[in-house]
């Protein structure tokens, strides 16, 4: 019934009460009993509990450990044994340990052995280092050094975070400020893009004013990105990219939903159902054919000028856009007003603070 039991295990027939108590005491040693439960008043284990415990233990015993587990445990035990000094100054422990008590009789009071004048005498045994594999001398310490450096770096980073935690409020404030500036920047860029477009279209005597459609059809989008002023080039670029992604996704969806039609389905003529309204068409993706896409052909190209601009702090970027608006359009971003003359009379200044 219990194959794990060795032949030495006590057969149940012979279990006397005293025996039971003793075994129980041992088996519970790994669990911790707090002092408020004195062992005399401890309730005896019920047979059910006992059987459960035995089964648990048997399972733990019966499981075959993997080599790695054994090796790890071996090492752990070895290290545990090696790090524990056998010496004790406790008189009881000395009495119990015959070796120590003999040494005490010879006058050992701790410290190292030998002549008192000998300063080199060792008080601790030599450490054991088990070498694994065939690594040359210095390799391990080199690796350790690298690890340590990494740990130090990580520690520094952790320290930084800690410092920031202290100024939590400050950080939150900065984050908010940053977010606000980002919002203002985007707003200023939009205005700049829009105003440039208007100016461009005015120059071309184009009376098309619908700004929503402009980005798709008017020259702005068809112009190479690099010809746009850097102050809002990023915005246009992001828009273009988003548009391209959306279209690609759409093509993909089309192709996968109607397997017979290829990825170019959106460009193919479609059957026009009169009963479908615009929304239906939109939902079915049938209005696509009427839209012309012209993406900037240099969308994938590297743009150093833009990268340099984007790397600037948000506040500085904003300041640049504001200045661009003032210089090109005599528009003050803070007054939200286009001044009629170069002097921009009436505007209190170039910064937000000036407008407070």
């Amino acid at each position, binding site marked *: 019934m219990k194959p*794990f039991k060795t032949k*030495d*295990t*006590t057969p149940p027939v*012979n279990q006397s009460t005293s025996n039971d108590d*003793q*075994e129980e005491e*041992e088996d519970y*040693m790994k669990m911790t009993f707090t002092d408020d439960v004195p062992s005399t008043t401890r309730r005896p284990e019920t047979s059910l509990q006992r059987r459960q415990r035995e089964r648990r233990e048997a399972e733990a*015993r*019966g499981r075959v*450990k993997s080599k790695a587990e*054994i*090796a790890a*445990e*071996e090492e752990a*035990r*070895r290290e545990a*044994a*090696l*790090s*524990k*000094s*056998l*010496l004790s100054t406790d008189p009881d422990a000395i009495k*119990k*340990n*015959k*070796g120590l*008590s*003999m*040494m005490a*009789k*010879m*006058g*050992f009071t701790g410290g*190292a*052995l*030998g*002549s008192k004048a*000998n300063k080199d*005498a*060792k*008080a*601790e*045994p*030599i*450490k*054991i280092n*088990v*070498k*694994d*594999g*065939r*690594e*040359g*001398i*210095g*390799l391990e*310490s080199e690796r350790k050094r690298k690890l340590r450096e990494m740990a130090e770096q990580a520690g520094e980073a952790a320290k930084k975070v800690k410092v920031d935690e202290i100024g939590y409020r400050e950080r939150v404030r900065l984050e908010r400020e940053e977010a606000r500036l980002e919002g203002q920047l985007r707003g200023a860029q939009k205005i700049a893009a829009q105003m440039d477009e208007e100016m461009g279209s005015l120059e071309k005597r184009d009376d098309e004013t619908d700004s929503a459609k402009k980005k798709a059809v008017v020259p702005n989008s068809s112009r190479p990105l690099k010809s746009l002023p850097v102050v809002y080039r990023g915005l246009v670029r992001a828009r273009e990219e988003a548009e391209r992604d959306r279209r690609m996704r759409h093509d993909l969806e089309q192709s996968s939903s109607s397997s017979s039609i290829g990825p170019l389905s959106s460009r193919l003529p479609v059957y026009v159902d009169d009963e479908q309204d615009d929304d239906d068409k939109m939902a079915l993706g049938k209005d696509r054919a009427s839209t012309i896409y012209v993406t900037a052909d240099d969308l994938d190209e590297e743009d150093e000028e833009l990268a340099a601009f984007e790397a600037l702090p948000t506040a500085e970027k904003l300041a640049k856009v504001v200045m661009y608006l003032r210089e090109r359009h005599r528009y003050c971003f803070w007054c939200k007003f286009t001044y009629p003359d170069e002097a921009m009379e009436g505007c209190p200044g170039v910064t937000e603070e000036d407008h407070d």
Partner: protein
Amino acid sequence: MSDYKSDSSDTKGAKRSMDDSISKDSKRVKTNGKEKMADYNPYLAHMYEGEGKAAGQKSILDTFTRQKTTAEQASKAEDLDVNPWTNQPHSQQYFKILQTRRDLPVSKQRQEFLDMYHSTQILVFVGETGSGKTTQIPQYVLFDELPYQTGKLIACTQPRRVAAMSVAQRVANELDVELGEEVGYSIRFENKTGPKTMLKYMTDGQLLRESMHDHDMSRYSCIILDEAHERTLATDILMALLKQIAARRKDLKIIVMSATLDAQKFQTYFYDAPLLAVPGRTHPVEIFYTPEPERDYLEASVRTVLQIHATEPEGDILLFLTGEEEIEDACRRISLEVDDMIRESDAGPMKVYPLYGTLPPHQQQRIFDKAPEPLRKGGRPGRKCIVATNIAETSLTIDGIVYVVDPGFSKQKIYNPRSRVESLLVSPISKASAQQRAGRAGRTRPGKCFRLYTEKAFKKELIEQTYPEILRSNLANTVLELKKLGVEDLVHFDLMDPPAPETMMRALEELNYLACLDDDGELTRLGSLASEFPLDPALAVMLISSPEFYCSNEMLSITSLLSVPQIFVRPNNARKRADEMKQQFAHPDGDHLTLLNAYHAYKSAEQGGQDVKQWCHEHFLSFRHLSSADNVRQQLRRIMETHGIELISTPFTDKNYYTNIRRALLAGFFMQVAMRESSNSKVYKTVKDDQLVMIHPSTVVTSPYDWVVYNEFVLTTKQYVRTVTNIRPEWLLEIAPVYYDVDTFEKGEIKSALTRITDKIKRRQVLKGSR
């Protein structure tokens, strides 16, 4: 475990490259009748009136005044046609050797040495390898001490058995006397000295054993501790003892000889003793480091050797590695690569020789072979490459080495009292060791040393000096010897490097469990008897208790077999076959029993008149180690007989024959027992130390019990117990009740298992009683 010098003790070839031709040619006519000298007593030498030295004839030595001689006088005596020590004419060979002796660096400072020797009781002598100190200094002392006048001998200790033997042979040749007569040696289990012996080379351990019965070392007028820089356990103990004895015996002279220049430590230790330094015959050695640490030092070693062979001018290569397996592997790889190099790039030929302690002597001798000739006339010169353990570091001199490759590792014994692990571990060498290795390149001409580590690693990672053996050993045996030597206060015993207190504590504790020391730390009768055996206390106690188990003959055999290196041979190219053969001797209950079976088979083959060597070869057994076990057995048997320990056996037909042996093992090894974690597990747990171990794969035990006794704990990257035998836990409680007192155990599986067994025994007794 017991064979604590196994690695070094079997090193043949010894300190100096032996000149075989000399020993053959120097056969002389036997001196005066041996019968007459049979009952010569060295203590009564003065009563024989010069008989000991020259059988009544006048000798130039009679004109010498003891401890007042000069180098000139001695040289004159040496130049005579008649040997002043034997009054026999000198052989032709003698003068040839004398010429080479006079060329040794130490020879130029003979007078300086004598002056200093006369002026002090303790002298520190530093001479690098090749200075000739080991052979010459004892002879200089001999001509000054004139032992025949006092009847006191001169002793020169060596850390290694083979060194003691071969140096004694060399010095006997130099003095033109028979080995074992005027010059002899004494090592464990072998004594080659006679009544006429004046100069005795011996292992440091042997001198220590001798002094157990002669606390003042009164037989000697001068004791020379050679190779003290090696700091063996026995040399360290001897130094501490001699420091004490020197205070009592003002007539005793002590010379401490070291090969390294850091002799200051010795000077300070011996009350600022004067120092004499003799330069060695060395050439400058250029040292190279690698720019980056190596990922695999073995591969780097092979690569470096090949590179030297391809690019460097003529000269032999010495590569240091850690052990047999690694060395054989490297030899194979280098040989293969060199074959390629010869084919592809017209490289010169290169012979690769391994060198390690357990290599048979005739193979060790091959390292002295000449480097191979160029493949064709005018071709690139050939060279030899020796791949060696650190025995080539100090103990062996190979001429012709110009390049040294040093990966920076060696196998070192290590002991930690906390887990009671004593094992050989691959560890980084010390700076001193690295310098010693480099020095090997400069013996014949300027050389190069390639260190396979960075200069930074050399400076930062290597310790200054190798830890002396006393800090790396289990001291149970030493403590027993010290007790026998009359050292009462072990705590304040003035050792140069005292061991850690915990090591001492463990030793005392173990001896107490073995009942060799009582609770007050006094030597018991058993302890005193155990110290008579040149064995570890556990083995000695096992042997002494064996008559109680009716198997002392068998235990004697097992003890001898455990005192020699592994008798089972397992060559790489015939592993399977070797294992099959071993299986013939296998006893399912244990490796100890298997050893015994193999020994019995060996003895019956011997008695059956078979060619034993051939028989051993066929059965994959080491003839060398079996015959040395046989020799050890005889020595131990003599000691047992001397002390009245009965030699008995259980009849082989008795069903308890093997059981008795298994039980008798426990009488000594009850502290080396492991319990299986669970019945289907391979993992065992050592009792009390709580270490996880596995049984070494070399075992023959096929159906392991839950409890085993083991001979040694091996720590490599894994933890193994080697040479194990099944036992029953009931025996533990019966044979070692003090150690297995359940109350002393920490809570855990072993304690619960022991409790169950105790209860079972109790119940059985109750049942018996009620019947």
